């Protein structure tokens, strides 16, 4: 694995679940569309591995699911943010902003604090 890929994997590891919460912030999402968006944005290498994460977020009650009948196929599972998920996202956003500013200030070209 290329070094840059390893770095990316490490970064994804800590942030992916908050990206999921962030994508659900405005509206509920069909599981497939949610996974595809994460994949298209290069936030996951393998789409299938998002499902275990979604399962855990559901168990932690940060998201919940609803089922919608589909006119063309089997019922679809939609994910949406719970109040606890919203609170977690707000908390992460605050920490992330501070963390990012710190890292940016240390990295070459960053603004020293």
């Amino acid at each position, binding site marked *: *694995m290329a070094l840059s890929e*390893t770095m*990316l*994997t*490490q970064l*994804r*590891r*800590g942030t*992916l*679940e908050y990206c999921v919460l962030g994508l659900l912030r405005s509206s509920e999402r*069909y*599981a*497939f569309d949610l*996974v595809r968006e994460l*994949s298209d944005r290069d*936030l*996951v*290498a*393998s*789409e*299938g*591995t*998002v*499902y*275990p*994460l*979604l*399962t*855990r977020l*559901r*168990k*932690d009650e940060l998201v919940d*699911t*609803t*089922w*919608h*009948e589909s006119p*063309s*196929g*089997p*019922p*679809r*599972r939609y994910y949406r943010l719970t109040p606890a998920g919203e609170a977690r996202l707000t908390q992460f956003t605050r920490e992330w902003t501070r963390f990012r500013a710190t890292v940016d200030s240390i990295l070459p070209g960053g603004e020293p604090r």
Partner: protein
Amino acid sequence: MTRTTDDPVVTDYLARLRRAGSRLRPDELEDLWASVTEHLDAAAERGEPAQVALARLGTPEEIVAAYAGEAGPMTGVPAAGQGTDGAGSGTAWAGAPAAYAHPEPRLTGRDIAALVLLQGGGFLCGVGWLVGAVLLWMSDRWKWWEKLLGTLVVPGGLVTFAGLGLVAVSSASMETYETCSVTPVGEPGGPVADSCMTTTTSASPDLGLPLLLLTFLLLGLSFAVTAYLAWRARPGRAGSATA
């Protein structure tokens, strides 16, 4: 309806997923399997070739490893990918709590109890049937009209049929008697012929048989409704709360 599970490539993939997931708890595997099949169906609906969808999903082993990593030690599966570079996974989250809760309710004991009580609960002084009806309406497994169907066909369940059957049988119970008459043949004092007639009557001849037929018809209908409700609530099928 687009289903991909008939495609041999997909069948093979899902079989691998089942094998790889055999280390997970059955409910965990069921949850994962449902998600993956739904994903493949959605990809097929969009006209994506199965091979492409499978390549994007990653290997079954990789997905199961990520599941084990998320669910924590209760699965008893080592979290492959954690503590390493997480090769290819990108989802193993080192901070994942190990707390485990049951996945999405599917066919719960309460749903089964509802169906059993709707049929047999009437024998518990009728209260059992009422409890069954309440459980039916509380469940999110059925739509409102399915619940109405379950309630109306037939109130009381088997006890109603037992009652109807008893009435029908007692109405249709046959009484047989024989009447004989002696008729002189020819001259008085000559030979006589006796003829006997068997007569069958019932207490309510117009009611018994139709009532019995109606009982069987309703019984069949009631079993059909119960079977339908059980089928609608089968494991792996979506709930209907929002449908």
